[in-house]
């Protein structure tokens, strides 16, 4: 791989730059230092060697002067101490060698030193030093010294080694430092690069670089961010704009496209393409000529030609077919126009393609439908036509017209219609108008459709119904210029309509018919209309009696249908039995002869019917009777007529059945009505609101009215008008609604004249299917006399009780008091005498005392003394005390409000009711605790006696106990309301509510 510094990552680049710089600097310094070292070393060497030479020269001067070579050699030999000096030589002034010294390892020849001036030089890795030898002011010789540079080289080597080591150490430090320090520069740049990369990669222009410093990099980041911001904004604007376009392009059904002029590339196409062409946008992108390949082979050349020539001129507007991959064909309407650049040159083609398959299909369907309609119309025998109002002539008239009315198309005109028209019915919009009026309105455009059923006489004299249905034909301005319509033979339909009409009118007439005769007449009349007959009958059949009941029998007498008699209540004829057995029968002259029995003649017995039809009238499986129509002309009827007649019979069987049932019902009702009307007990039906729905005479009389009608008319509110105590009516309704029925409900009522009487009612409630109350019905009995007797009985009983009580109190008790007194005296006497009987006497006295107490209690129970003397309250207090004393149980009395009662009868009855209830509780319920409460609330005295006993049975049992009965009676006597209820917690509550007499009085006076 070729190394290219430029492509290195910035991190490496920085590191490398720093390292190279450091290396260069260090290398230079090292070289300088080494060089300096060398120079310094040489200088020192030269100086050292010169000093050495000086000494040698000094020492050699005398030997030279005295020509003592030995001494000279000795002097030179001293150089052995200097290892660097490898060679020394002394010369005489004439240049001859005087003495010489060589280190052992030196084998090199010294150069000739003659003529060399004093000094030194480096030569071939050696240092040479030259010096004159002076003696006594004159030169006596010269000296040459040669020193090698081994020491220097060793030094140098050490120096260089140190320098190299120092260099690498410094580079290492530089590397570490640079790695750290380069981040100051590289990190922000790399971050920036990363952000830029992310922006490119993700097209996300909302990313931002983080500015960390204020230097040029920070500035760069800032600029970069601003740039991104601008791009983002521009991008957002562009996107929004593009989004708008895209939404438009992608939501509408049309396909937008953009291409270059040469049609080699699709620049844009909206996604609607996929749905219409059935090919993906990717495919199209890969192969821009795909759309040409999709073209239907028949259209391809034409479309391509248009594409090449007309798109640039903007005239491209073609319809073509494309074939989708699944083989289906779509019709496309494609338009294109050139797009010009700023200079006005065409550089693109824009287009809109639309799927018009549905429209094409619709058009095709329309054509096809039109053809089908035409076929259908003509095939159905219908005659289409078109009429021009201006010329009042037919622009077109179907061939079928000749068959319809007998005139060929060219002859048909308004006049012909006038001539053959017999009757007509306007229908639809113009229903009810005359044909002239309707025609006028069609021409003026007031009505848009024309429907007319018209009966004509054809050229050959047949009567025929024709339906004429037409619609307006308007010109472009909307003006009515003519009409188009269809003529059709509807004779059959009219006939069917007539049947239906006849049947439906028959149905309504039958439902209105009250008698079988009426119904039969209608049926026969209908048969005459639909089929026609000369004679006919309807006979019913009574299965129970196996008798024929003739209803109507007609015959044609003197050209008129006349009602004739038929044998009444006769056994069914053989023909009737045959019909019962076999069903409908068509008899003509031939089949008549084959029948095994003769006919029962009716009407004009001289003539015999030639064609006859018999059909059974059935209701389900029941044979109700027989319908027959007959003609004197032979072969007058066919099977179709028989079917129609049977349909007629079936149609009216329901009505006949109903009539028969109604008749039976009426008879039954008459029986009951007799019972209802002649009953001695009152019978009623009343509404919950309080009106008499029905009442019999007995009831009306009971209330003092002449007739039930009079009573119903006068009594508007049973509760207010007839009840002495309206509460009783409410009680009555409550019981009915709760229990469904009520027996022996007794109440005091007002007669018409205001007099009072007692009635006992047995009643039940009648509800509809949903459970809502329809009315009450029941019977009433006048029980006034019985009540009167009962009252007398009670009064007698009360009187007897009082008398007995008084007798007990005044007679027996006084007598017992005296006896007790005597017994006490006796006891005292006996004790005084210290008799052994004194104890017994004392016992007697105590027993007598007890008897007195008992007798008094008894007397009080029988005759409430305090009631008369001290009033109701005291009497009640005494009653409670009395019960406590007599029965040794808890009985308390409480009162609230003013409970003083003026009417003695009322207080007596209330007292007795309380007494009876309490005693009942003791005797029948085994109560341990009895509460008697009396309160006066809103002018009503409430008396409540409750106990904790076993309770009474169902409320309906209450009539069984004489005590309850008497309580009821007493309550009734004073017009109070009595309720006996079982408590949930066990025990019984007897409630008696007495309304203040004044109020009752007031109500009564209002009524009278």
């Amino acid at each position, binding site marked *: 791989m070729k190394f290219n510094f430029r492509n290195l990552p910035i991190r490496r680049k920085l590191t490398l730059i720093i390292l190279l710089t450091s290396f260069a600097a260090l290398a230079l310094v090292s070289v300088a230092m080494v060089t300096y070292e060398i120079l310094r070393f040489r200088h020192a060497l030269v100086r050292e060697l010169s000093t050495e030479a000086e000494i040698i020269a000094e020492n050699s*001067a*005398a*030997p030279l*002067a*005295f*020509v*003592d070579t030995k*001494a000279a050699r*000795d*002097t030179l030999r*001293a150089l052995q101490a200097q290892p660097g000096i490898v060679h020394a030589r002394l010369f*005489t*002034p*004439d240049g001859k060698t005087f003495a010489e010294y060589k280190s052992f390892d030196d084998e090199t020849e010294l150069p000739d030193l003659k003529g060399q001036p004093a000094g030194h030089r480096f030569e071939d890795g050696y240092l040479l030093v030259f010096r004159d030898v002076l*003696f*006594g*002011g004159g030169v006596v010789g010269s000296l040459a010294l040669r020193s090698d540079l081994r020491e220097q080289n060793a030094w140098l080597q050490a120096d260089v080694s140190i320098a190299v080591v120092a260099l690498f150490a410094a580079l290492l430090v530089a590397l570490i430092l640079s790695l750290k320090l380069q981040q100051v520069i590289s990190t922000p740049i790399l971050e920036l690069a990363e952000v830029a990369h992310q922006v490119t990669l993700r097209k996300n222009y909302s990313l931002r670089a983080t500015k960390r410093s204020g230097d040029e990099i920070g500035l760069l980041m800032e600029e970069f961010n601003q740039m991104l911001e601008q791009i983002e904004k521009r991008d957002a604007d562009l996107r929004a704009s593009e989004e708008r376009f895209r939404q438009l392009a992608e939501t509408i059904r049309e396909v937008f496209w953009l291409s270059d002029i040469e049609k080699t590339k699709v620049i844009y196409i909206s996604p609607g393409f996929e749905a219409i062409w059935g090919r993906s946008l990717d495919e199209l992108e890969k192969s821009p000529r795909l759309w040409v390949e999709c073209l239907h082979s028949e259209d391809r050349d034409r479309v391509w030609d248009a594409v090449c020539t007309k798109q640039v001129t903007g005239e491209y507007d073609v319809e073509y077919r494309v074939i989708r991959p699944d083989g289906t064909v779509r019709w496309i309407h494609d338009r294109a126009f050139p797009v010009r650049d700023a200079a006005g040159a065409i550089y693109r083609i824009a287009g809109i393609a639309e799927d018009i398959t549905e429209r094409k299909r619709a058009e095709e369907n329309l054509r096809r439908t039109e053809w089908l309609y035409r076929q259908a119309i003509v095939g159905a025998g219908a005659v289409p036509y078109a009429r021009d109002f201006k010329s009042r002539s037919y622009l077109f008239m179907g061939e079928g017209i000749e068959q319809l009315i007998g005139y060929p198309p060219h002859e048909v005109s308004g006049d012909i219609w006038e001539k053959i028209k017999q009757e007509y019915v306007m229908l639809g919009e113009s229903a009810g108008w005359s044909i002239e009026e309707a025609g006028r309105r069609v021409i003026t455009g007031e009505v848009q459709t024309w429907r007319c059923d018209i009966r004509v006489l054809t050229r050959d004299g047949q009567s025929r119904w024709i339906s004429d249905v037409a619609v307006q034909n308007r010109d472009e301005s909307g003006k009515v210029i003519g009409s188009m319509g269809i003529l059709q033979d509807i004779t059959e339909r009219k006939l069917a309509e007539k049947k239906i009409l006849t049947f439906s009118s028959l149905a309504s007439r039958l439902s209105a018919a009250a008698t079988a005769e009426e119904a039969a007449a209608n049926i026969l009349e209908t048969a005459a209309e639909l089929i026609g007959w000369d004679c006919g009958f309807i006979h019913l059949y009574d299965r129970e009696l196996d008798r024929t009941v003739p209803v109507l029998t007609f015959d044609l007498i003197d050209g008129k249908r006349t009602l004739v008699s038929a044998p009444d209540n006769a056994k069914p004829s053989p023909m009737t039995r045959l019909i019962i057995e076999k069903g409908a029968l068509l008899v003509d002259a031939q089949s008549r002869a084959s029948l095994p029995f003769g006919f029962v003649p009716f009407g004009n017995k001289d003539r015999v019917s030639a064609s006859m039809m018999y059909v059974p009238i059935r209701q389900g499986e029941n044979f109700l009777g027989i319908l027959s129509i007959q003609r004197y002309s032979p072969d007058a009827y066919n099977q179709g007529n028989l079917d129609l007649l049977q349909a007629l019979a079936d149609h009216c069987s329901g009505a006949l059945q109903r009539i028969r049932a109604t008749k039976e019902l009426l008879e039954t009702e008459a029986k009951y009505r007799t019972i209802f009307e002649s009953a001695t007990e009152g019978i009623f039906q009343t509404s919950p609101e309080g009106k008499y729905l029905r009442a019999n005479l007995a009831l009306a009389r009971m209330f003092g009215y002449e007739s039930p009608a009079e009573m119903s008319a006068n009594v508007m509110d049973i509760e207010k008008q007839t009840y002495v105590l309206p509460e009783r009516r409410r009680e009555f309704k409550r019981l009915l609604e709760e229990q469904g029925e009520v027996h022996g409900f007794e109440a005091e009522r007002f007669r018409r004249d205001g007099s009072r009487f007692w009635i006992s009612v047995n009643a039940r409630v009648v509800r509809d299917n949903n459970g809502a109350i329809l009315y009450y019905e029941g019977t009433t009995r006048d029980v006034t006399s019985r009540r009167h007797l009962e009252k007398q009985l009670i009064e007698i009983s009360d009187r007897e009780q009082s008398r007995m009580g008084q007798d007990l109190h005044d007679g027996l008790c006084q007598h017992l008091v005296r006896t007790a007194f005597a017994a006490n005296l006796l006891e005292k006497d006996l004790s005084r005498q210290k008799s052994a009987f004194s104890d017994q006497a004392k016992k007697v006295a105590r027993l007598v005392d007890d008897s007195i107490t008992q007798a008094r209690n008894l007397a009080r129970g029988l005759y409430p003394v305090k009631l008369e003397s001290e009033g109701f309250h005291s009497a009640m207090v005494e009653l409670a005390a009395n019960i406590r004393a007599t029965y040794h149980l808890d009985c308390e009395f409480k009162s609230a409000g003013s409970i003083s009662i003026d009417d003695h009868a009322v207080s007596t009855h209330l007292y007795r009711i309380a007494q009876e209830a309490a005693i009942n509780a003791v005797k029948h319920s085994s109560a341990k605790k009895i509460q008697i409460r009396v309160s006066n609330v809103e002018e009503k005295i409430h008396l409540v006696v409750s106990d904790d006993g076993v309770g009474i049975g169902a409320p309906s049992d209450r009539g069984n106990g004489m005590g309850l009965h008497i309580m009821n009676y007493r309550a009734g006597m004073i017009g109070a309301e009595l309720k006996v209820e079982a408590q949930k917690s066990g025990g019984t509550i007897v409630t008696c509510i007495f309304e203040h007499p004044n109020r009752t009085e007031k109500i009564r006076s209002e009524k009278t």
Partner: protein
Amino acid sequence: MRWLWLAIFLGASFSSVAEDTLVAPEYKIKAAFLYNFAVLTEWPDTAFDFPKQPLTIGVLGKDPFGRTLEKTMRGKTVHGRKIEIARYKTVEQIEHCHLLFISSSEEKQVEEILTRLAGRPILTVSEIDRFNYKGGVIWLQKQEDQIKFRIRRSAARKAKLKLSSRLLALAINATPPNRAGK
């Protein structure tokens, strides 16, 4: 032959005169020796009457040098003093002399001469056998064609002369300084 070679060498350097070719080459060297001795010897201040008094080299007896001596000394100085050559016939003639070459002709009365000169700062040099044992300072002797000398340091001390160590080192009887240390 060695001394011959040396004589050639010396003759060249001392720019000897052709007329001195009668003088034995041996004395040319000895004349140079005399100068060398003077250079390497320090006289006491009493030996000179005034600072710039030239150094006198005297020859006593029969002069073997001829003109060689003058030629050798011409233009040279010793310790900044010019050199004067003096020739003496008798010892009594000697007044101001610093270096005295006693010719071999005086061999018989050498001891007398030396006695007469005793105490005077005069460097005495002679070829007379065993000269230094007789009270002289430097005995020049020929040895294997080379001219060597012996020095009597006590005689030098008596004459109040300081001889350079370099001179002493070159004397035959002197232990070489560099070996003395061994």
